[in-house]
Structures are given as C-alpha cells and as structure tokens.
C-alpha cells in the first residue's frame, strides 16, 4: 500500500515537472518570437510602430545580445516619418536600461552628427 503510494507520488511529481518545463520552454519561445517582431518593428518607418517597439524592448534584458545591435543600427541608419528626435531618445533610454556599454561609440557618433536628439513630439 505504502509502496504503491510512493510510486504514485513520484509519477505525479514527474508529470508536473514535465508540464512546467514544457510551459517554460513555450514561454521562452513566445518571448523569442516577440523580440524578433519588436526588432522588425524597429525598422518600420512609421514612428508609432517603431517608438512602441523601442520602448518595449527594454523589457527583455535576456535578449540583450540580439537587441543592442538592432538598436545601434537604428541609431546609425534609420530615419522615421516623424519625431526622429523622440525615436533616438527612446532608443537611448532602452540602451541605458539594458546597460549596453558597447553602444557608447554609436551614441557619441550620433551626438557628433548634428542629427536631432531633442524631443519634438513626446513631452
């Protein structure tokens, strides 16, 4: 009776573990997909889409290795249909939140470029 009970418990624990691991893997997969989409949105010329993505990316520090190069690229080459100063501001905030020291040369280059870094739309 006792042995049967122990076996039952072990089986239950095993099933629970598998379900949890599966859930975590699925969540990881979801996050990867979300980050990929946000990085794509960053390349959008539409300011509303790109700005939302730049802000949201700060919530995924686990994906810093993929996010930072995309943000740096955006700082260097992208232009948006309006409010480019606000866009650069949002990117800089996210870089700061991600503690992306490797982005400093690009930030300095931007400061030297004469491109606007002032707020135009967002207070």
């Amino acid at each position, binding site marked *: 009776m006792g042995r049967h009970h122990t076996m039952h418990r072990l089986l239950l624990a095993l099933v629970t573990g598998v379900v949890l691991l599966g859930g975590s893997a699925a969540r990881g997969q979801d996050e990867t997909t979300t980050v990929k989409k946000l990085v794509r949105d960053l390349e959008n010329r539409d300011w509303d889409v790109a700005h939302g993505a730049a802000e949201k990316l700060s919530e995924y520090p686990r994906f810093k290795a993929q996010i930072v190069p995309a943000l740096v690229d955006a700082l260097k080459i992208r232009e948006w249909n309006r409010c480019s100063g606000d866009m650069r501001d949002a990117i*800089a905030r996210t*870089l*700061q939140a991600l503690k992306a020291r490797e982005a*400093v*040369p690009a*930030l300095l280059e*931007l*400061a*030297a470029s004469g491109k606007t870094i002032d707020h135009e739309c967002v207070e």
Partner: protein
Amino acid sequence: MTPGEVLGERTHDVFCERAVLAAINELADFSHSKAMADLVTAGKWRQEMLMALGKVAPPRYAHFIGRYKDDADPNVRSGVAAGLGLIDNDAVSIPVLVQLLTRGTKPDDLAVKWQAGESLITIGKRKNGDTVRRRLGDLLQDPDRITVTIASRALAMLGDARGLAKLRDLTGDPDVRVRQDAVLSLADAPDTGSKEALLRRLGDDSLSVRASAMHALGALRDPSVVPALRQALQASIEYERELERRKDRGESLEVLREKYGLGAFELRQTADQAIAAAQSKP
C-alpha cells in the same frame, strides 16, 4: 513656487532633457574620454560632455576641462565647475573652482558660482578637506557678498563653524538677495543655533526672505517653531495685501517685486510645507 522648489532647480539634472546624452554619461568609461573631448572641442554639447568627462576621464583631463572656464556661455562654465568636482585632480580643480566661485556679478553667473561651491563641497568631503576649508575661509573676506554667502554655505556643509556663523550674520545684510540666499543656505545646513536668526527673518521687509525663513525653520524639524510659522503666515498675507494696495496706487511692480518680494512665492504653500517638515521626525 516655493523656496524648496528654488533650491531644487539649482540642482537640476542637465541630462534629464536628452536621453542620448544621459546614456553617454551613464554608460561611458575612461576609454571614451578622447571621443567626448573631441565633441567639446567641436563645440557640441559642451556642458554635458565636460560633466561626463569629469566623471570618467583620467586625472590629466582636468587641464582640458579647466580650459573652458572663461567660455562666454554660463552653462559651459557650469559644466566646467561640475566636471572639476568629479575628476580626481584636486591640484588643478581647486584653484579653478575658487576662480569660478569668485568671478562674475551678473545674474547668469550665479548658477556657475553655485556649482563651483557644490563641487568644492564634493571635493572637501571626498578628501583634502583642510585645503578646501582654508581656501573657502579666505573667501569670507571677499568684497562680493554673494561669493561670501556661497563660500559660507560650503564651509557650513563641510562642518566648519565659521560657515554657519557667517551665514547667520548675512541674514541681516542690506541686500535682499544676500539675505535670501543666506537664509536658504541655512536650510541646507540645518542647525538649531540658527533658529533665532531665522525667526527674526519672519518679519523681514521682503516677502521672499520671509518665505525662505519659513522654509529654513521647517528644515530644523523642531515642532516648537510651528506657532511662529502660523503667525508669520497670517502677518505675511496681510503684508502682501498691503503691497498689492501700494501697487494699485501706482507704485512700480518691479520695485515691489525686487525689494519686497511681491509674488515671488506661494506663501500658504510654503508655510504648509514648513509646518509639515517641522512636525516630521528628524
């Protein structure tokens, strides 16, 4: 507007308006010094980059930062003052900061002088306290009483009794700006020994000095000053009405503002904040 807000504006974070510069200031290290110095040389974002350099650059960059102490733009000179307070090269920083503290009598110069005082406090607390206190002590004889006020405040913040004593003297100065700054400085270095001098200022000719005294008394966190604060509020509201009547009779609004502080501060808000502070636990 309250005196507390005036003090808050003096410590305004120049990086809060542009996240690109804030990120550079936050993330850069000494290896970026040359690129930041190049921006300054090119005339771009001088104030911010001088501050960022002060934070991370090797000590030899103090010479580079100091080179901009005579810049025509007071914001750049403020950047010099802030940067020199951060960089580790007191042999260069202290003399330049003393120069920045003593020079200029225009309203624009006040922020530079104030920042130089702040940086001397930072250096004095970090190390070389004796050298800084000696240099500040020499400034107590300066002919410009705003300079004396800022030097006294710095001495007081460094725990030198000469600073508090001088500030208490200056609360009775004939110049309203000096009285107000001395009183506000006593709020930054709260000491029960200043109570009598501050209580006297609740009856000052200028409403801006009265409001500053309310704020400074609140900073003492001594509940025994509350009745005096309540009384001072009522008397000041009456006085404000009298000044308003004088304005209506044709007296110059500019004089009433400058000499008597008409409209400078929200009296009730100032008194409420001071009473709340006085009743809070030290």
